[in-house]
């Protein structure tokens, strides 16, 4: 009995702190989402208004006026989805490349890992000024040298820019995890592949990829969880613009609190962000479990 007490003494502080700082505020957010509460109108009482905050975003009155929420939702899914796709496909190819025995390959691996640890606001500002800028950036200078007119990518292709930057930051993580998987494949398997005359393409897609599917799953899952909440990079590159064309859900929550001062609606959006995260994680998990079952 006495030892059991110490075990709870080890466990409880962490549980209490995590609950107070994360779960309890989330419950409050759920409650706030059912209130009419506008910070810029302190004269109005905070009243319960059921699902009005949700309906404000979700209700489609007519097909001509589809609420902005749907385009923001679509942008969030698009940015996250395309980034994850690029990261897993290109990341897998690069991991295969880095799996070779090359003199000093660790230096190359280390260099490629770098962007993952760069704070998103810094990478956004750096890319925006030294690469994408039409007069001072490399893109502008190279485009002019080639006789083309550089366009302001950040305003014309905001989603593309965000996807490129997200991919740049997250692909190193995919490479790291997939490379660990590739290096975990036993050497005698690779040798017997060669002896049996398996072609390179077959070896990669029929043997290596299925073997590291679990690593892929982990990378995609973590990438999804972290990408969906990304905020800083969007703020410093496109600031959600032009208009709301590169808003994502976290960015929309931020704008609802700090520009519209609408706590109720912001909370409803925040709850829907959590729901979206859970749905996507769940879908991903299931699809991959199914796939695994087929292979084993």
């Amino acid at each position, binding site marked *: 009995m006495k*030892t*059991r007490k*110490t075990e709870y003494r*080890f*466990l409880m502080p*962490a*549980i209490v*702190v*995590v609950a107070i*700082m*994360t*779960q309890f*505020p*989330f419950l*409050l*957010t759920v409650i706030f989402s059912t209130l009419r509460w506008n910070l810029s109108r302190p004269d109005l009482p905070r009243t319960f208004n059921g699902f009005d905050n949700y309906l404000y975003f979700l209700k489609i009155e007519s097909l001509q006026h589809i609420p902005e929420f749907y385009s923001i939702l679509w942008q969030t899914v698009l940015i996250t989805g395309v980034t994850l796709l690029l990261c897993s496909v290109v990341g897998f190819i*690069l991991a295969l*490349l880095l799996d070779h025995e*090359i003199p000093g*390959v660790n230096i*190359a691996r280390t*260099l*490629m890992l*770098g*962007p993952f*640890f*760069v*704070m998103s*606001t*810094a990478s956004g*500002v*750096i*890319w925006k*000024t*030294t*690469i994408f800028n039409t007069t*001072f950036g*490399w893109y502008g*200078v190279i485009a002019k040298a080639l006789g083309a007119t550089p366009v302001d990518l950040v305003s014309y292709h905001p989603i593309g820019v965000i996807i490129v930057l997200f991919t*740049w930051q997250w692909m190193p993580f995919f490479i*790291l*995890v997939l490379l*660990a998987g590739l290096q975990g494949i036993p050497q005698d398997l690779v040798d017997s592949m060669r002896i049996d005359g398996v072609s390179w393409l077959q070896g990669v897609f029929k043997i290596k990829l299925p073997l590291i599917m*679990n*690593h892929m799953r*982990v990378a995609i*899952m*973590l990438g999804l969880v972290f990408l969906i*909440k990304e905020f*800083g990079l969007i703020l*410093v590159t496109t600031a959600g613009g032009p208009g709301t064309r590169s808003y994502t859900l*976290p960015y929309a*929550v*931020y704008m609802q*609190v700090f520009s519209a001062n609408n*706590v109720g609606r912001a909370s409803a959006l*925040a709850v829907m*962000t*959590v729901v979206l995260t859970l749905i996507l*994680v769940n879908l991903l998990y299931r699809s991959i479990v199914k796939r695994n079952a087929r292979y084993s």
Partner: protein
Amino acid sequence: MSERTLVQVQRTIRMRHLWKKVLMTALVYGIAIAYFFPILYMFLSGFKTEQQAVMPAIFFKPTLETYRKVLSDPTMYQYLRNSLFQVLVGTGVSLLLGVPASFALVFGRLKHPESNGKFYLWFITTILLPPVAVLIPLFTWYQQLNLINTPYGLMMAYVGFHTPIVVWMVHSFFSDLPGEIFEAAEIDGCSKLQQLTRIAIPLARTGIISAGLLVAVFIWNEFFLGFNLTGNPTATLPVYMSRFREQQGMFVAQLSASSTIAVLPAIILGWMTQKALVKGLTMGAVKG
């Protein structure tokens, strides 16, 4: 086939292999350098003067002038100090809470045998929670309690979000330790606390250190909470970077020098943790 031609054939095969290797090496290095280029260029531009930095160039006469200017700016120090506080205290408290908790989860006998797994899962699901889900209540509390202008409010939020990551990673490192050691220690009259501090922590030292370094990197880079839960006196470096263009204007050299200061510690710490990062983050999930 005569002996001579055999040698020749062997030589051509070897040459072909060599060429393949040279090409592969060039390709890998080319890609790696291109990938790293934005960071490399930022690092180089910090050693330029503003006039030099206007036009992109890789070769130039380096100067420390810009760094001197950036480091003589007292606001930069304030942001740096705030970031260091969050990283040191936030990481420290997260480890202090997370390491004993994961010890109890791996080796402890809780009331119900299935509790260990349930609590562990609870910590993991907390990682899924995006910070937007907690921002609004925390923001309203912090405003009422005036925690916005102290570093402690943000620090507590960081502890709440990073303790689960510590639990997750350290759990996988503790799971590698053989349970018999602790049974033997138990019989020898070693208390749970002694088992943790004298046996488990020293044995899983490298894993715990890398979990700490990874959390340090996460906190150093965290922007969303740092931006929304701080006032001017408590804002951290990522906030400084986000405000750079509006406050300092378009000064490429200054921007590069400041971002180098903001980015380099995280990259170096990150490089140090890379092995443990893969192991800690994937082990549970890959096996499970």
